[in-house]
């Protein structure tokens, strides 16, 4: 283990946390002075006043950490990825302030995805899933754009209760952080900065007196950063140290299993009812836990623990069984979890 790397990561975690904590408090006060509260509607899981300033605080914290990391250390991330993140964050801000239409938001997300893949990091291989490895460039682009849209919206849709989106993002970044530290001398400081920023936000998200939500800015921004790292994992040019342990596509699915499964389930239910799959309602799995009387923290923590257990089992199954058998066993485990906790 390189002590210098660990110390640098702790430093950027601290900077991210401090910056986010300060900015969340500052932006909360500013939003409050201007009476910019999140509207409470029938499907809201909260009844107290809260601002949607968390995403902005995350974005600014990330900018500060990146500027510092770039100036002092060798922190660097692909320029196109940065442009895509900024574009997505601005889209989220527009949505938070003016509530833009879903169709417009969709096209803006497609544009951000196109910008992101210009950096040369995209899904160019199925890594053996269905016996397919390398795929044509046009198919790579289409699949990458599709995955970007799915991931970004999945993280936006699960942002329905306190802490859930943030905690699941932290879980993702914790594993990715370890992978990136092995692989990249430029990007490894990006992860602790983000994790620190999310941690600082969480203390406001659970606060009784200064409640802050991620808003579309935060959820879309986190989703886009997660999508970028998913591209990084699924790009055959990337070196991923877990290749001997688990298939890359399976690892990606397990890392974002809850947002994916919940979004898929909610969309299917809506379509079954003859509604648009994008309509906002309370059919999400986390709403079920809240309706059962769980607190927001209890529900978010339960889902986090369940998704970590699925991830660990995925690694264990993959070490012993083939990809298809591992997927089947994980599916059985998830079904058992559903009937035990959500039914």
């Amino acid at each position, binding site marked *: *283990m*390189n002590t210098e790397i*660990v110390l640098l990561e702790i430093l950027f*975690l601290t900077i991210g946390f401090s910056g986010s904590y300060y900015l969340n408090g500052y932006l909360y*006060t500013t939003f*409050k*002075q201007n009476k910019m509260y999140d509207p409470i509607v029938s499907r809201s*899981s*909260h*009844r*107290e*006043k809260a601002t949607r300033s968390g995403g902005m605080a995350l974005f600014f914290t990330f900018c500060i950490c990146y500027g510092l990391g770039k100036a002092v250390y060798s922190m660097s991330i692909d320029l196109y990825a940065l442009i895509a993140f900024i574009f997505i964050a601005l889209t989220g801000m527009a949505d938070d302030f003016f509530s833009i239409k879903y169709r417009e938001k969709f096209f803006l997300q497609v544009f951000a995805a196109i910008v992101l893949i210009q950096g040369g990091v995209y899904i160019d291989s199925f890594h053996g899933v269905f016996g397919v490895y390398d795929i044509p460039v046009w198919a790579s682009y289409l699949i990458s754009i599709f995955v970007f849209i799915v991931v970004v919206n999945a993280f936006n849709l699960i942002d329905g209760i*306190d*802490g859930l989106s943030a905690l699941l993002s*932290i*879980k993702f970044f*914790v*594993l990715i*952080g*370890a*992978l990136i*530290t*092995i*692989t*990249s*001398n430029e990007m490894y400081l990006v992860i602790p900065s983000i*994790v620190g920023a999310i*941690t600082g936000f*969480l*203390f406001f998200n*659970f*606060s*009784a*007196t200064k409640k802050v939500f991620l808003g579309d800015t935060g959820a879309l921004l986190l989703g886009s950063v997660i999508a970028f790292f998913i591209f990084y994992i699924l790009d*055959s*040019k990337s*070196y991923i*140290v*877990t290749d*001997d342990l688990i298939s890359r596509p399976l690892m990606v699915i397990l890392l974002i299993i809850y947002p994916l499964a919940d979004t898929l389930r909610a969309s299917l239910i809506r379509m079954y009812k003859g509604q648009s799959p994008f309509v906002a309602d309370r059919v999400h799995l986390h709403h079920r836990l809240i309706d059962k009387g769980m*607190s*927001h*923290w209890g529900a978010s*923590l339960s889902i*986090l623990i369940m998704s970590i257990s699925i991830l660990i089992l995925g690694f264990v199954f993959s070490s012993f069984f083939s990809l298809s058998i591992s997927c089947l066993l994980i599916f059985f485990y998830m079904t058992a979890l559903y009937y035990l906790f959500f039914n």
Partner: protein
Amino acid sequence: MRFLILILFFISFLSAQEFEGDDFLIVEGESLKYYYVLKKEGYYISDKPEKLNLYKKSIPESLNVSLSTLTSVTHNSKTYLLYPGGGLLYSFIDGAIERIDRSFPHRNQYGGYFFSYKNNLYLIGGYGFWQTKSIITKFNFNNGDWEIINTTGQLPKGLDKGTYFINNDNLYVFDFLSRNTNNQKEKTEDNLYVLNLKTFSWKRLGVVNDIIKPVNQVKGSKRFFNIDGKLLISYSESPEFFMADLKTNVIQNFRDDALFYKSGRAIVKGNSLVGAIKNPVTGLITVESFTLNNVLSNKLDKELYLYRGSKEFFIYIFLSFTFLLFLILILTIYYRRVGQTYLLEKDSLSGSGKSIGLMKDEYDILKLFSEKRSVSNSLIMEIFLEENKTKDFAVKKKNKTVLDLEKKLSLVFKKSFLEKRKSSSDSRELNYFLNKKIKIIEDSND
């Protein structure tokens, strides 16, 4: 120890050869007992350093470059010399240099790594025609041609000035440069790559420890040798050198003030390093042989990892999940604390994700509890006393308001907020107490 090394250094001069001029090449030769020093006019054998031996055949005309620019490899106890940039190949056997290829000086692989593996000679990487190359070519002894071998996997973009090491059918390469074809800007690569020489598939193994500075940032030329299955890297302008073990993923740095770093064009022969040293006064170049027995005695730092691999990954995963566990613990404690905190505003009380509307009297009562945990009955009564109403009316109104408020709060927040008890100091006086597990904070900004 340094004294001993200095003595060894001077002893080695006793068996040294002296040359005038820079154009010579030290080659391993077929025997462990001696090495050769090739010059245009003849060659020296180390066991008879004073005698210049003439070549049995004249040097081929195509060998129109300095001998020092050739790269030599010993393959099946024979010495082969590669023309700079690749293509032309010569053998040095039985005192004669002969051209053995049917190729041409293609100038495509300057600085490539020329090596022997099993029964073949290979040339990998290099620079030519404004491009860094990651191709690997094999010399065909039957037809004298160089053949390009197709490779698969995570191919590096270009391999220039790299550090190479062959071990167990694997060719490891790191610390190399690639160049942008448009502006020739150098890009250093910080990953370790491995090429399986059986399957010719590339794999990236991880980021190399930054104790090894990139090749374009160090002074002097870089040399690397395979010594007993370990990789030795040294720089001509620095007394510090590195010994890396790729099997155990360990690297360690050493210092050698006397022997090592000033010897140029060095080769490793058995347990000795053979290199050239130029006398700054006379200008004479001396080829010397140094024993490597004591060279590892002066360690600078403790052992470090060579590259970040799976072992480091598990350490980082452990640290990451420890952090996650710590975060969950802190947030649980925090949530327990904030779960008992309620925010009082002029028209509402909110907390635990719920909110309740408040009348003015209810707000006034709760405001008292935001200041003190126990409030006397008389203090609450002050809220209800009105000039034109009787005290009895005020008492009844207070009792009803407190009772209704408590019921309302219990219904929404599922907790008992207020409790009425006799004062411990005066049994005739009643006090209201806020539940010990509840904290009311008044919103200061509104």
